[in-house]
C-alpha cells in the first residue's frame, strides 16, 4: 500500500483490531453482510462469507533478533448470506 492509501485506509486497521475482540462479536455478522454486498452480482450472489483471523506471534529471540513466525488462521465467523442481506 502506498503512503497515501495507508493514510486514507488506516481506519480499517483499527476496525479489524476491534472485529477480533470477543466482546464485540456482534460486529461480525454486519461485517460479513458488507463483504457479501461488496462481492455479489445479480448473476452470482454470495452465499457464504467466512471471516478468518490470521495470527503471527511476535517473539523476540534470545539475541534480540526477530524472525516472523508463520501465520496461523482461525475462523472468526461463518455466515450464511440471506437474500435480504444483499438488498
Amino acid at each position, binding site marked *: 500500500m502506498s*503512503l497515501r492509501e*495507508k*493514510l*486514507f*485506509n*488506516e*481506519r*480499517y*486497521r*483499527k*476496525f479489524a483490531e*476491534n*472485529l477480533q475482540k470477543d466482546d*464485540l462479536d*456482534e*460486529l461480525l455478522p*454486519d*461485517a460479513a453482510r*458488507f463483504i457479501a*454486498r461488496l462481492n455479489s452480482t445479480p448473476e452470482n450472489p454470495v452465499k457464504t462469507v467466512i471471516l478468518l483471523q490470521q495470527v503471527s506471534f*511476535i517473539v*523476540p529471540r534470545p539475541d*534480540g533478533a*526477530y524472525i516472523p513466525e508463520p501465520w496461523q488462521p482461525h475462523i472468526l465467523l461463518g455466515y450464511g448470506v440471506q437474500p435480504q442481506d444483499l438488498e
Partner: protein
Amino acid sequence: MSIRSLIKLWNTFFFEKRSPINIALFRIIYGTLVIATLVLLRPNWLNWYGIHAWVSLPTVLKLETGRRLNLFSVLPQSDAWINALFWFALFSSLLLTFGLFTRTNSVVVYLCLTSIQQRNLYILHGGDSFLRLAGFFLIFAPAGAALSLDRLIRVRRGKEPPNIQPRSLWAQRMIQLQLSLLYLTTFLLKIKGAPWLQGTALFYVYHIDELKRFPVPGWLLRPTVLKVGSWAALLLEFSLGTLIWFKEFRYWLLGAGVLFHLWLEYSLNIPMFQWDVLSAYILFVDPADISRIGNTIRLTASAWLRAPAMAREERTQAPDMHQSTV
C-alpha cells in the same frame, strides 16, 4: 496554607483573565485538524456511516446502550442525508477555523464530531477522543476573541476596542487538564502491564507490519535501544501528565513532547493522532512568548517583503545618480 488561600489559588488558576491568543490559535489548529480528519474519512464515508455501512446503526445502538449524542439516529435514513452531514460538518469546521460565527460553529462542529464518533466507535483512536473532549470545552472558550473574522467585524463596527482584551481562562484550563490527564492515564495504563515495565513494549510495537510507516534505522530496533526507548516514553508521559504544570519544566517538556510525537509520526502509521495531541501544546505557551514570536515573524516577513521593493527602488534611482555625476 489556609482554606482562603486555597480558594484564591483555585480562582486564580481557573478564572484569572488572560490574553485569549492561545485559545484562538488552538481554535485555528483544532479546526484544521477536524477538516483533515473529515477529508481523510471522505473516500470511505458511506462505508463507515452509510445505510449499508460495515456496522449498521441498529448494531451500534444495541452495543452502545444509554443515551448518546448522535445526529445519525435522528437523521432520515438515507445516504443523501448522511453525505449532507459530511458537507455540513466540513463547512462548519471551515467557518470555525476562520473564526466566523465562532460560538455557533464550535457547537455545530462538536455535535457533528460526536455524532460521527458515536455512529462508529470501532474505528477511533485516542486522538479522536481528545478532539471530541477538547471540542466540548471550546464551546465555552473565548475562541473568537482573537485572530478571528468575528473580532475583525466587531472592531470595524466599533463594538470592541482594537486591543485584544483579556478573558477568563477556565475553558482553556479544562483542555489543558484534558491533555495532562491523557498522558497520565496512558502512563498508568502502561505500567499495569509487564511489557512496558520490562522495557519490551516497543519491540512488539515496531514489529507490527500494519503500523510501520517510514523505515527506521536498524540500530534503533536493537533490544537495548528499544528498552531505553520504552522507559523514556514512560518517563516522558508521566512528566507531561504532571510536571508540565510547573513553569521551570514546561518548555523542556513541551520540546521533548514535540520530538517524541514527531518521531512517532515518522515511524508509526496512526494518521492524525500525533497532531491531535500536539494541538493542545499551544495552550501551555506563555502568551507573552507567543506575541514575541509573532512580532519576530512579522518583522522578518516585512523585511523580506521590503527587500525586493528596495532593490527595485535602487534600480530606478541609479540612472539619475549616474546622470548627475556626469
